[in-house]
């Protein structure tokens, strides 16, 4: 398969979907993040999901999707280093299964492209009522972050870790900026994204020529100057900083540690990174799970993950209040041990087998395939098939894993912990 250019900065990739009963169209707009309009972008994603010019009403759109045999449509905002990705995707039964001969391909294409390229505007701006409603949704989302303490702890640690770096620009924007969001500012951010983004359309099981025609038609009158994709960036290594936030009534403390490689030199391959994380803390056979949770009983959960482009590694865990320091030391000991000597052959092979198995499973879902290939696009690498990915994963050595883990340094250790007993039920 190939990533074909439809126009400057607009690409289409067609993936095989023969064995599935459903099809999927995904559109990604990748653009440079900007601190001053991050909140506008967050509101924009919510407003876009409500409808488009051809079906402006949110409930009418939900009913239209239900009428298309329960097709699922979503709008999402995600991060890729210092870039952000505004995506729309639609998944529904394949056109040949339409019970009454409806033209499902045309309907799917119209909706998924309409959401991003033909928004519902009133006098050239986003609908004021929709913007006002979604500002309040976002305000509630800010407030809700605290309710999930695991996520809250990770977010707090992340804020300390990235500081003012463009990589740390909040996906949901900033509460103090919310009042300043207007239909005009949301439209300005939309125009910026549409102009600056690199657009990738990924088609699975739908007539690609039809989608290509519609994409070109939708963007025909649009002046665009796609920005180059952001270069990888890394947070410099600094002496570890500890933060502890006491939350009255919390039952289980949360501990989150952020590590950096401090450099963008010698980015590891994604295959090496996956093996290293699997071995350290990414699976139920990892060092963190086996030793810190199972043997030492210090955490209920304790896992590691990493972002390649930013050279970041994250360890988060749920611990008994009062055990935060012991857990932190135990986590660091496991890392030090893997840095000091190569992993045992047996554990490396167990980790590798698990990863090979997960790569095999990529082809079992439309979403899995789409993520696999868009991941390559984000890393600016040529496409490789899952089978080729398995070969590269098989070639990773214990010495490479050891060398990679040696490059991480802990910058931030953030704990959300208990202060006093829970309030009793009444």
């Amino acid at each position: 398969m190939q990533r074909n250019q439809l126009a400057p900065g607009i690409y289409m990739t067609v993936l095989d979907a023969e064995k599935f009963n459903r099809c999927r169209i995904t559109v990604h707009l990748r653009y440079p993040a900007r601190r001053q309009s991050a909140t506008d972008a967050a509101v924009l994603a919510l407003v876009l999901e409500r409808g488009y010019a051809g079906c402006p009403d949110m409930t009418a759109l939900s009913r239209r999707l239900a009428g298309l045999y329960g097709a699922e449509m979503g709008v999402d905002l995600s991060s890729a280093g210092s870039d952000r990705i505004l995506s729309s995707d639609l998944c529904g039964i394949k056109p040949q299964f339409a019970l009454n001969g409806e033209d499902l391909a045309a309907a799917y294409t119209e909706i998924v492209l309409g959401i991003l390229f033909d928004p519902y505007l009133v006098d050239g701006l986003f609908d004021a009522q929709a913007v006002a409603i979604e500002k309040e949704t976002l305000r509630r989302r800010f407030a809700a972050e605290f309710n999930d303490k695991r996520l809250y702890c990770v977010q707090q640690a992340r804020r300390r870790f990235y500081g003012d770096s463009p990589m740390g620009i909040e996906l949901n924007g900033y509460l103090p900026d919310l009042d300043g969001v207007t239909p005009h500012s949301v439209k300005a951010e939309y125009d910026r994204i549409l102009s600056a983004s690199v657009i990738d359309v990924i088609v699975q099981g739908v007539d690609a020529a039809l989608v290509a025609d519609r994409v070109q038609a939708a963007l025909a009158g649009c002046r665009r100057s796609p920005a180059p994709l952001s270069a990888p960036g890394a947070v410099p290594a600094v002496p570890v900083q500890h933060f502890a936030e006491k939350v009255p009534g919390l039952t289980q403390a949360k501990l989150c540690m952020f590590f950096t490689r401090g450099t963008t030199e010698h980015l590891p391959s994604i295959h090496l990174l996956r093996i290293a994380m699997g071995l350290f803390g990414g699976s139920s056979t990892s060092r963190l799970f086996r030793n810190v949770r199972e043997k030492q009983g210090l955490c209920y959960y304790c896992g590691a993950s990493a972002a390649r482009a930013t050279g970041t590694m994250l360890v988060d865990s749920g611990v008994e209040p009062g055990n935060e320091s012991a857990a932190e030391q135990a986590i660091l000991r496991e890392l030090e041990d893997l840095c000091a000597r190569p992993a045992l052959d047996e554990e490396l092979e167990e980790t590798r087998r698990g990863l090979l198995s997960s790569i095999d499973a990529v082809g079992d879902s439309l979403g899995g395939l789409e993520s696999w290939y868009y991941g390559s696009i984000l890393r600016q690498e040529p496409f490789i098939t899952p089978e080729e990915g398995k070969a590269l994963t098989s070639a990773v050595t214990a010495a490479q894993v050891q060398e990679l883990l040696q490059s991480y340094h802990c910058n931030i250790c953030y704990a959300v912990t208990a202060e006093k007993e829970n309030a009793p039920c009444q």
Partner: protein
Amino acid sequence: MPMTIREKAAAAVHAQKAVLPSGLTVLCRTMPGYSTVHAMYATAFGSTTRDFLLDGRPVHLPAGTAHFLEHKMFESEQGDALELFARTGASANAYTSWDSTCYLFSATSRFDENLDILLQMVAHPWFTTGTIAKEQGIIGQEIKMYEDSPDWRLTTASFRCLYRSDPIREDIAGTVESIAQLTPELLYTCTDAFYQPGNMVLSVAGNISLERVLAACRRAGLDRPGHHPAVTLTPFREQGPVPQHSMHFTMPVTRPCFSLAYREPPLAFGDVRRAMILDVVTELVCGGLTDLYRRLYDGGLVNPEFSSDYASTRTACTVFFTGESSQPEQVADMLRAEIARLRREGVDPRLFTLVKNEMYGDLLAMLENVESAANHMQAAFLKGATVEEEIAALAALTPADVDGALQTMLLPEWEAFVRIDPSGQELTPE
């Protein structure tokens, strides 16, 4: 939906079934072209199974026993089954619900070996006082993690309001105190009673044939009849009115969270039609297609996470509407008013058809995924149904069925409202 559509749907979701002489039911959905095989080995033994007769001897279990057992089943004298799965590259896990416990793996190779590990692990329990003590610490941490979850606290508080003595009142994991009572003998009693093939189902989906799954069962000795003790579940039916119509408490949250819950008569084993009605009704009251949802959302009264669902066990059935809101009472009042309106005026036939279409699409989509297919097959089986029967029941459902059901469900006398306020906030007086 016309018959031809039902036939198409039935073909699309078809699974093979075999019942072995040991009593084990095997379900297999062969999915050519897929790499993964997902297998689930489940027993109809969950957290609400607390009292039973084993060969005529009464047994009472502490809260959290089924869940504790689930954690311990991975251990054997030879080591940890998770490590055996890791050696094959499989990903394994387990979970306990109110009425079942399920052990599972996903693998893309060495299917026979993985099936052998799964079947052996469940067939040969091994418990000691020492390993039980170690697990009590880990589960104690898990219990604490759930105590910090507003969603979970809403669910358990709703059960406590609605039921005076049904075992669903107790948390699935029990309490630190209840699991401290567990002994190897008690755990063996549970495996003797509920981990017998006749009480279990093996559900497998993916690129595998039924014959291959049956061969694994033969290797595990599951093709032979065995002597199994007689188990009689203690009959129970919650009596009397709802013990508590509302509950307020505080937690470290930033906005109030709420649950409006209704006690319903338990679903009879195999009553697929009523299960479908419960799904459809909750969607018609406040699902994303309704005007009520739109008013709640646009009015800033609920988040997109606002949802409805129902929980069903052998002895209890509860419908929930849950979410976060700065005005929980107002949301509850709007829900009550909508339920009353639907009861009075009947459901909108056009909306009813859209909800049915959506559920039909969801069912078909679910069966395209290996994990969802295996999971849905075993869950339906333990409720006394098949996926084909679910689709047929959905297809046969009419607006009149829902209108009729609404006359006797979601009634105010069987309602409980739970509200969680942010810590430090004054509690609203009743």
